[in-house]
């Protein structure tokens, strides 16, 4: 009875504080967003028509970005200590006559004294007759060569590739456009492990929940292509492997932008044509980038639920450091006839074991996962408005209780009897590029360090610097 009450209250509380599966919060309303860029600790993205969104933490967004020039579908890249902002002048004119322009700014913060755009420079045009519409630019600085590449175009014919001078933002002298894709738009390039990836949006936009936008990818060893998909079909034949499509009430993703936060932690910025939870408006979306078999695919915003938290190091599960309680076992002899009725054995219940647990803080450890109550964790959006790029902070409690996982000033982890909302009880969860997860406290008390939950030995959780190259730093959430 008591267990049911605790569980019921926890569930009710979780329901009350749970945010539906929205893309981002605040007022993230935008169409054709530029790749999210960080500037002096804030995040920025610009959209069609002018203006843009700003976020202090990457989760809550509001208006205030400033991009002159109007037009449509800009992109942004930081080169050195400046930002290059690229946009299409027309917003897609009915006659397909357009131009791509670039301009510089030392900062994206409109309140900064350094905020001043340079005069826009035309780097590409479409004359209204050729098989290209000069809109939807996407830009990449090749990490292997330092060369600056830009793709642009829409469904009207070809997507084209040009090279810019990374010092001036101008078209590189003598450069001629190269066709790299057909019947798609909102393209951009990504380099990884010897491959150039061309990401582009297929489908239709601007029809709310009926929009069929989706992002696909092809890859090539050469920047000029051909970009082939997973079945060997060229993007010049319409090919492309799905990266992100409609998911739940988030409909019609498009305008992929690639964000590398650090090794193993990559995000994509997109917009959804319609977020049904937000009135069907077009909203900014940020998702993890997962690389699977050499292809990028959208990960998922962490889904609230009750999980085993599995250490990738050995595969043990995070658990409360309490006495293991045996389940009853009915001995069976070999050769015993199997003719009696089979009755299910009930799972061990929280109420049956928790009465022996200490009332105060309880340490955690990592152990053989046996689906026992001390090994199951309920993870929900914390009743806290702050977040990080692409997600809110979460509270992690032992399932059926309010006992919360918390970081200590000694850079260790334990559980406290009740969740209070203290920042050391808030956890950041990032899906990594290999599909596993990083778990980080919002703060480590009395420390400015950013530490992650890691496995020190097979059985000991602690907090330490995140290392993508070590399975000690990685976790999975198992929904058994």
């Amino acid at each position: 009875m008591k267990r049911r009450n605790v569980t019921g209250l926890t569930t009710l509380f979780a329901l009350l504080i749970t945010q539906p599966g929205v893309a981002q919060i605040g007022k993230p309303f935008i169409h054709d967003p530029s790749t999210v860029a960080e500037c002096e600790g804030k995040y920025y993205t610009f959209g069609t028509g002018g203006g843009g969104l700003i976020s202090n933490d990457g989760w809550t967004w509001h208006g205030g970005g400033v991009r002159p020039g109007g037009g449509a579908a800009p992109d942004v890249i930081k080169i050195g200590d400046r930002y290059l902002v690229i946009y299409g002048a027309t917003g897609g004119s009915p006659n397909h006559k357009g131009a791509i322009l670039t301009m510089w700014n030392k900062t994206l913060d409109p309140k900064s004294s350094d905020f001043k755009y340079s005069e826009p420079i035309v780097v590409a045009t479409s004359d209204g007759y050729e098989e290209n519409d000069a809109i939807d630019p996407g830009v990449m600085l090749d990490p292997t060569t330092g060369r600056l590449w830009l793709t642009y175009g829409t469904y009207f014919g070809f997507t084209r590739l040009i090279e810019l001078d990374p010092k001036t933002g101008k078209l590189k002298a003598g450069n001629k456009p190269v066709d790299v894709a057909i019947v798609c738009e909102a393209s951009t390039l990504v380099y990884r492990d010897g491959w150039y990836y061309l990401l582009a949006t297929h489908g239709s936009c601007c029809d709310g929940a009926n929009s069929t936008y989706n992002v696909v990818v092809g890859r090539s060893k050469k920047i000029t292509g051909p970009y082939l998909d997973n079945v060997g079909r060229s993007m010049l034949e319409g090919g492309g492997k799905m990266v992100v499509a409609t998911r739940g009430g988030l409909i019609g993703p498009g305008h992929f932008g690639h964000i590398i936060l650090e090794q193993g932690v990559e995000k994509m910025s997109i917009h959804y044509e319609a977020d049904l939870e937000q009135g069907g408006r077009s909203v900014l979306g940020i998702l993890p980038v997962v690389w699977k078999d050499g292809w990028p695919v959208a990960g998922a915003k962490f889904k609230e639920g009750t999980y085993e938290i599995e250490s990738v190091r050995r595969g043990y599960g995070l658990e409360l450091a309490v006495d293991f309680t045996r389940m009853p076992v009915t001995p069976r002899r070999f050769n015993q006839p199997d003719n009696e009725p089979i009755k299910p054995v009930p799972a061990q219940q929280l109420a049956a074991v928790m009465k022996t647990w200490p009332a105060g803080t309880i340490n955690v450890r990592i152990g053989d996962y046996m689906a026992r109550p001390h090994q199951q964790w309920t993870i929900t959006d914390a009743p806290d408005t702050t977040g990080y790029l692409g997600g809110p902070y979460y509270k992690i409690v032992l399932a059926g209780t309010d006992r919360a996982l918390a970081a200590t000033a000694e850079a260790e982890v334990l559980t406290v009897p009740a969740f209070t909302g203290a920042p050391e009880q808030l956890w950041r969860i990032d899906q990594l590029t290999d599909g596993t997860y990083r778990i980080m406290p919002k703060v480590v008390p009395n420390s400015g360090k950013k530490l992650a939950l890691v496995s020190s030995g097979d059985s000991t959780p602690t907090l330490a610097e995140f290392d993508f190259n070590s399975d000690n730093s990685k976790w999975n959430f198992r929904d058994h």
Partner: protein
Amino acid sequence: MNRKYKYLLPLISFIVLSGLPISGLTAFAQGMGPQQRIPLPPIPIKGDTTHTLSKHFILASAAKKAPDAKGFIQRWLVLEPVKKDIVRNNIFTDHYLKTAFATDNFSSDYTAVPKNGEMVKVGNQDLKWYALDSKAFNVNLYHFTYAINKPRYGILVWLVTVIDSPEEIQNVRLAAGCNSGSQWWLNGQEALLLSGDRDMIADNGTSARLTLKKGRNIIRGAVINGPGMANFCVRFLDEKGSPVKNLTIRYE
């Protein structure tokens, strides 16, 4: 930002470019910043803009024509477009397409092969057949209608081609991609329907297993499109998924 919804474009372009702070547009443009209407720079015309078929097509001849290196069929009899009032392409449901293709049809005989230059009547429109070889793997009907100075948007285009197979080939599939909807028949039998607002993607849809007869086989197609660039590509795939290239294509 896909410009397929042409009916919206003049309005959106006007609002965006004139910088009017209309709150209702914030769904598209959050936090409209200071607007500077920058006129397009002078953009010189880069190529031939005359209405001529020869830019993207070759007038088909009696010479033998094989599929291209990937098996795409480039020789087609193409009928001038049937003008349709189509606001958006996501109206192309199965029912819509079947109804439209049955109604705006030049012949209910799906094995009929029109003659190059022949005039036919569809509804109250008199339309002419053109025998063409596309220079690309696909047939860009936007280029076709531009070349003959006919409507480029809101069109239904009928297609016929004749392929000779040196032997019977079983278990082939007709593979097609189109912008936006289409239907395909082989030797009078319906083979494939591509409904919805599609992009022209090679092998976007394939038929059930079919048999190419030894000798003459007739493909009929219909492509329909509202806003955007009407376009299609067709080839046959064998039972292993490889393109069938040992064919001869003609228009008679």
